[in-house]
């Protein structure tokens, strides 16, 4: 039962990554692509973390996976805001290479 749950969670993680990658390719502007990058780090990371926890619960491995996901959740929005701010400042200055 644990194996099936792990495989389903891994399939969901792969599906989320592919969906984000397709969106990343299709969305036209860097601002739009920021949404795809954030989506992948949050949703696929959630399923990967759950798969690791389901595979080996109550272990140091599960704790590390949870720490990685927590770090992605904390740092992801900061990076997205920082990149968006940098892109807006570049657009306003009008010296895009």
């Amino acid at each position, binding site marked *: 039962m644990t*194996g099936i749950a*792990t*495989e389903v969670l*891994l*399939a969901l*993680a*792969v599906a989320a*990554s*592919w969906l*984000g*990658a397709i969106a*990343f*390719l299709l969305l036209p502007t*860097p601002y739009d*692509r*920021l949404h*795809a*990058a954030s989506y*992948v*780090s949050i949703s*696929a*990371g959630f399923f*990967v973390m759950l798969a*690791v926890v389901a*595979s080996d619960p109550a272990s*140091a*491995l599960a704790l*590390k*996976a949870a*720490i*990685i996901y927590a*770090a*992605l959740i904390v*740092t*992801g929005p*900061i*990076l*997205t805001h*920082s*990149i968006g*701010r*940098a*892109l807006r*400042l*570049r657009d306003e200055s009008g010296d*895009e*290479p």
Partner: protein
Amino acid sequence: MAFMNAWLFAALALLPPFACGAFMALRGPIAGRVVAVQFASAVTAFILILLAMAVDQRSFLDLALTLVFVSYPGMLIYTHFLERWL
């Protein structure tokens, strides 16, 4: 194919999304590249986690942990340069 397990399949399945991010990071204007680098670094962290589970080397998970914590200040410095000098 006895050495193939679900973790390895998932890690291999994440290679095309990573290649997508890497490809976008190599072409186009610099504004699009920095977003692609963030996308590719997130997918790389997932691939490292899955590979650690696939080969049953639990210490490899430290690579993913290190990547997440190192890419954060790296991207901040990158964006700082991006808005001023690049």
